[in-house]
């Protein structure tokens, strides 16, 4: 059965799972989705994929206790080493002692199955865990 990423910028089938940004070949600006024109330099590309590092630092977080579709998780914004940033759950975040989640602490990318379809294909998400 297949393992399928829940977003197209999560790459599961090319080495270690990692995020893949799109880089403007004119100015180097990164996005997570292919733009029609570069948001930074307004050229029409070309654009090329750029693998982001699998480690980074915790720039910001919030501990969601009363959420919309789920309660009790830590939402984290991470700056990857070498550039790029993304948002996902801090899978080992402290849900009770909030300040145990340290701003600036090193984290790494992890993946996990979030759901399985009727044919056994797995939807795979990414998150972060403390190093």
């Amino acid at each position, binding site marked *: 059965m297949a393992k399928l990423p829940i977003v197209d910028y999560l790459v599961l089938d090319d080495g270690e799972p990692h995020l893949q940004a799109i880089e403007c070949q004119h100015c180097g600006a990164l996005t997570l989705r292919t733009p029609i024109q570069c948001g930074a330099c307004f050229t029409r590309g070309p654009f090329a994929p750029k693998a982001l590092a699998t480690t980074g630092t915790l720039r910001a977080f919030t501990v969601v206790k009363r*959420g*919309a*579709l789920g309660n009790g998780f830590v939402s984290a914004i991470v700056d990857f080493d070498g550039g790029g*940033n993304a948002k996902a759950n801090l899978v080992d975040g402290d849900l009770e002692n909030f300040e145990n989640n340290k701003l600036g602490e090193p984290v790494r990318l992890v993946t996990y199955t979030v*759901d399985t379809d009727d044919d056994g294909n797995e*939807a795979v*998400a990414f998150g972060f865990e403390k190093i």
Partner: protein
Amino acid sequence: MSGADVYIVGVAMHPFGRFPDKTSLDMSTEMILDALDDAQLSMKDIQVFGCGSLFENGSGQRILAALGNPGAPVYNVTNACATGAMAVRVPYLEIRAGISDVGLAVGFEKMGKQGLLVAGQAAMAAGAGGGEKPRKVFEPGNVRIPSEGVLGTGTMPGVFGEIGMEYAHNNDGVGFEQFAKVAVKSHEHSVLNPYAQYRKAFTLEEVMNAEVISWPNTLPMCGPTGDGAAALVLVSGEKLATLPDDVRKRAVKITASALYSDPYNPDNLASPDVNSLTRTAADRAYEMSGVDPQDLDLVELHDCFATAELVHYDNLRLCEPGMAGKFIDERGPYRDGKIPVNVSGGLVSKGHPIGSTGAANLVEITMHLRGEAGDRQIEGAKVGMTHVIGLGSTCAIHILEKTAA
């Protein structure tokens, strides 16, 4: 910059709260008529109409049909939480450009007890009753899983919680206590405001020990949903000169109107940037008006959550760079502090019926500049600033001044 001067001559604001017996048409038309009476003008005089609502966008013509339509052009505008300011900018722009001399703006929303707002994400619908449940099938490039709660959060308390925590990461002296102090200040201010949805003071301990919604935002640090409407009548300087003495004497000049959206920021691939566009809009507004931040007598800024307010102390240059924590610690934004912020109680107490907020804060500042803000009056107020942000994102900043008519 050339263009006609623009004055506010009529204002009205409905108290924010929950009004199940009033429709949005009731509330918006009531405020429009009150604002027209305040200006001693009539619908017949209106040459342009800006109508702002997020959830009932497209209501302008319906409102004119109910009030009598002079044939004025209608702009139905929306820009998330900045909608109300968009509505006011419509007559502002036409008057400034010399196209109209008299304009009307209304911002309104009926939200009741709507609950959590989530950026750009609909909750998965519950299964429609009856019939066979469709098979759950994932395909490459088509894996339909809601990202909420998986790829972090898009709920507003969470998004603005992260925005606050990013400021805490980048600057010393900011933590949970500083964010909580902002809410304490705003709720204390709200006690004096009869238009506020909630008018209850909280101690710091009560705020910090309240139910956590999305830490560091606890329940009293979050703006409530509800119903509201606010209307304004604007005129050109030339028109103002023809109005009765008692209208001219109470006129308030819009000396800056700055509107910006958010350009590309490499730091914000997966989260909104409310800082850069606020700074840009603020600097533009200060430049347009010639006002220095330290000249401001009061500010009504966009505190959808207490964490949001704190970062805007810095973004609006109300404090030294990086010093927002110190600013609240030293009571800088209190009504008796260096620069009073959100003496209305702010969104966390006054409420945030989305389409009305950006118009209501202009009404609030106008009341103070006229000396008509009752118990919450900032004495001698002559210069005020309003600020709203709509995620997506848009920032609108206005500077108002009481000048000799």
